[in-house]
């Protein structure tokens, strides 16, 4: 992985994924190390993202690295009309690795082709967000002890949710059984179903959250966004029927954990937060260890 950009989860093989997760496990045991001394990481956030940016910056800071960058395009030279290529070519001179979030799809791949240093995609529009996927995988492996042969339920917006699509592709390396629960208009696109069929994996689709969640090892909730609906009344109706509540978890498996990429709106009721099956806040913490693992392995330090 040394010097290789991470743009799409498909850039990493099963072995690469395992290496990152093993490394993240080491960082969890020993999170404060001076591994990034004398290294400068550029965080270019052309679109604001509090959680992802702070998680990356926390990872770099805890390893004693330094950070330069901007948190929105208003504070960058994009405001003056500079092209992405020119911004990357310039920043390329100032740091050892670029972490980039950009609203346009494919921007991170392009940046990695322009830059001489490795680029880590921290989200390119609705396309890819591979470090989120790796932290999701880390959270799944940590709570289940394995990634193999699990029963994963994906609930909510399965049509537009990029975290769902990337997670599905990554988990398909591990003989996963998938269950998809979503409103009719936000169903998983056919291309992903075809992808699973090609891999010979089983999946089921449901419209309602019902008893079948009792088989789940992992429930991965996503936010249903208002802007996805042309009819606001339809949105109001739908959003309330995809809410996970504490009493629905009574019959679920002991090992089951609930994940969510956050931010949450109302799709997980607050009464679930105290349930030991809720895992989304720890999942966010795992993001720091996972990003430490990604940065140090790309820089060839680990």
């Amino acid at each position, binding site marked *: 992985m040394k010097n290789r950009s991470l743009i799409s989860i498909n850039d990493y093989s099963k072995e690469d994924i395992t290496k990152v997760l093993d490394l993240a496990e080491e960082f969890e045991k020993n999170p404060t190390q001076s591994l990034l001394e004398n290294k400068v990481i550029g965080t270019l956030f052309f679109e604001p993202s509090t959680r992802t940016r702070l998680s990356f910056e926390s990872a770099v800071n805890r390893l004693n690295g330094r950070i330069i960058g901007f948190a929105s395009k208003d504070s960058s030279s994009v405001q003056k009309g500079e092209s*992405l290529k020119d911004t990357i070519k310039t920043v390329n001179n100032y740091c050892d690795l670029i972490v980039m979030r950009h609203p*346009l*799809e*494919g921007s991170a*791949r392009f940046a990695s082709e322009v830059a001489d240093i490795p680029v880590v995609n921290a989200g390119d*529009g609705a*396309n890819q967000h591979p470090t989120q996927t790796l932290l999701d995988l880390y959270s799944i492996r940590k709570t289940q002890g394995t990634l193999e042969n699990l029963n994963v339920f994906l609930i909510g917006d399965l049509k537009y949710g990029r975290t769902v699509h990337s997670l599905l592709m990554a988990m398909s390396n591990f003989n996963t059984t998938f269950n998809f629960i979503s409103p009719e208009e936000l169903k998983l696109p056919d291309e992903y179903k075809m992808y699973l069929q090609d891999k010979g994996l089983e999946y089921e689709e449901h419209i309602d959250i019902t008893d079948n969640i009792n088989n789940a090892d992992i429930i991965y909730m996503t936010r249903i966004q208002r802007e996805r609906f042309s009819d606001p009344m339809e949105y109001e109706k739908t959003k309330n029927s995809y809410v996970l509540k504490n009493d629905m978890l009574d019959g679920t498996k002991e090992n089951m954990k609930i994940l969510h990429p956050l931010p949450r709106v109302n799709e997980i009721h607050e009464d679930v937060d105290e349930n030991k099956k809720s895992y989304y806040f720890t999942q966010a913490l795992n993001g720091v260890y996972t990003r430490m693992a990604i940065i140090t392995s790309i820089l060839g330090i680990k």
Partner: protein
Amino acid sequence: MSDQKKKLLVSAIENGTVIDHIPANHLFKVISILGLDSLKKQITFGTNLESKKLGHKAIIKLSEVYFKDEDINKIALIAPHAKLNIIHNFKVTDKRDVQVPEKIKGIAKCGNPKCITNNDNVNTIFYVLPKDSEKVALKCHYCEKITDPEDMEVF
């Protein structure tokens, strides 16, 4: 329509290339992919000719023009059944089929308006993936979205 009549509709050439079996609705896309609009050679074409295979086909005859495989293969996306006849001295001296390339660069626009290639000065690259036995799909190297060759816009 008989072969005899077709020959009357589109006149014969002495030397050059005939591209036959182009779907009639894609004739102008083929012309722009091959850059024929800026070619200073004698070109004749006919369209909406009857065809057993395609329903309606188009044909292009190019005098003194020959194509490299890598150039002509670009039209395979929209005219997979196109046939090339290479003409010397009014006779067909060679026949070629078109082959779908694995990768195409800088011909077509990505169908995704939020793709970097539609917003910044970035050339498009597509991977050609089989969709079913007859059709292919174009996967953008940058945004990873699929564009259907039927809907693709040529630069």
